[in-house]
């Protein structure tokens, strides 16, 4: 409960600071929306010239992209700790974190929230509804529950991978550019996995499981039964990656010696 209370306190403060600079807040919405629109336009343009990509039609690919946006927005809002090394380790800010009475990772998450990115989830939802109605998808009563579980699973996959990368900072405070690398690899999950080379497929499923963010869970709602096993594995995969990440983080915190003054 204490954690939840803190979360709402921080959210309140966050919104206050953001509403102080409304123009900026608004502009970041617009530029997010534009980036999403550009990706969508790309898909639509491509399907002007072909009707299937490896057996997936336009609306299905659009649906996968819409689904991808939901866990991705959740991840960006809460776990976007790409500058952790610079902001906390190099500047010695992590010492301050350690004096706080809550788990260090939770404290970092609270400080790094970017709630405006949640808008991406709404965009994703709209895209899914649009594509879904074109496809005539039907929903059962338990689908919304599965949707939440799979979206959370996808978020945990992303969160876990980025927490592991951030934890590298505990061992070496040298600048790395692995973070942007990971963002780009993450984009592979937006498209059907069967278009890739088998090696890449394997990596996206078992090594850097980004396929669990977009194509695998979306396949369930598209009723592609050949992928169901992977779809249902999404929440489990999310939990596994996240737990491993938290363990690595905890080991890293023990190793941490402080770099600031």
């Amino acid at each position, binding site marked *: 409960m204490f954690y939840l209370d803190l979360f709402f306190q921080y959210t309140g403060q966050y919104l206050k600071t953001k509403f102080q600079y409304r123009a900026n807040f608004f*502009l970041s919405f617009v*530029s997010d929306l*534009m980036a999403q629109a550009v990706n969508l336009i790309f898909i639509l343009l491509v399907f002007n*010239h072909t009707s299937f*990509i*490896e057996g997936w039609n336009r609306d299905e690919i659009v649906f996968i992209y819409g689904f991808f946006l939901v866990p991705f927005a959740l991840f960006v809002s809460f776990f976007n700790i790409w500058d952790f090394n610079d902001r906390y380790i190099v500047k010695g800010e992590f010492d301050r974190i350690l004096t706080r009475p809550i788990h260090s990772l939770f404290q970092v998450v609270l400080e790094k929230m970017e709630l405006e990115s949640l808008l991406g989830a709404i965009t994703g939802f709209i895209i899914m509804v649009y594509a879904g109605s074109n496809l005539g998808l039907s929903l059962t009563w338990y689908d919304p529950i599965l949707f939440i579980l799979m979206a959370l699973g996808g978020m945990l996959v992303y969160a876990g991978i980025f927490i592991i990368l951030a934890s590298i900072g505990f061992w070496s405070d040298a600048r790395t*550019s692995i973070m942007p*690398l990971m963002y780009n690899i993450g*984009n592979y999950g937006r498209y059907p996995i069967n278009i890739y080379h088998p090696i890449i497929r394997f990596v996206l499923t078992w090594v850097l499981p980004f396929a669990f963010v977009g194509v695998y869970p979306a396949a369930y709602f598209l009723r592609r039964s050949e992928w169901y096993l992977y779809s249902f594995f999404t929440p489990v995969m999310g939990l596994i990656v996240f737990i491993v990440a938290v363990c690595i983080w905890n080991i890293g915190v023990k190793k941490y010696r402080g770099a600031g003054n």
Partner: protein
Amino acid sequence: MGKYLEIIRIRFLMMLAYRTNYYTGIVIYTINIGAYFFLWKAIYGSQGSIQGVTVTQMTTYVAIAWMARAFYFNNLDREIAEEIREGKVAIELIRPYNYLLTKVMQGLGEGIFRFFFFSIPGFIIVAFIFQLKVSFNLTTWGLFLLASIFSFAINTQLNILTGLMAFFLHDNMGFIQAKRVIIDLFSGLTIPITFFPIWAQDVMKYLPFQGISYIPSMIFAEGIKGDSLLNALLFQVVWVILLCIPITVIWYKAKKQLVVQGG
């Protein structure tokens, strides 16, 4: 002229000092090219050519478009905006050189560095991994280089324009971000211009964006030939000249109303 060459040289050496960053950069670009490579292969499926572009031309196009981006891409918009916001531009203005020209030269220094240490090795790696069919035609390469220089000019001019907006808007970061996204789509980096619907292509004839990525990359993939090649190069030159006008106007207006606080 000598001092500007010196600026190019210094920027080049500066980049050289931090070259390790570039090896991960090559990997990032390879990953991006890879994503589009597989996507385009799947899109073509059994179709031999779409809009007159064959699948081999398309994969070459994607690879060269990203590698050429390393040459024309720069952060001048951000740099200029920051220097304006922090008031550093006041000092730059009293220095014995033209501020904007200096910025262009710094961008060029970066671009030349990336061309040799990023684009060339990167392209060789990518061509090897994805087994691209690259034609060894010296005229094609020469024309591609020429078109790339114009593409650098157009992109840099657009960067300067967005950067200078900081004189009038207090925070133009959102603007800069939006411009970047627009350029990636409308320059033809992710998808060739010919894939757009006809009405959109007609609109884009009157916009400078395709001069940035589509024209040089298509020249390299040998998708533009003969008369249309000449027209394409002419299109670039016209835009390079046209874009000088708003830059000069804004620059003179901005200098007149410049207020630097503190410093």
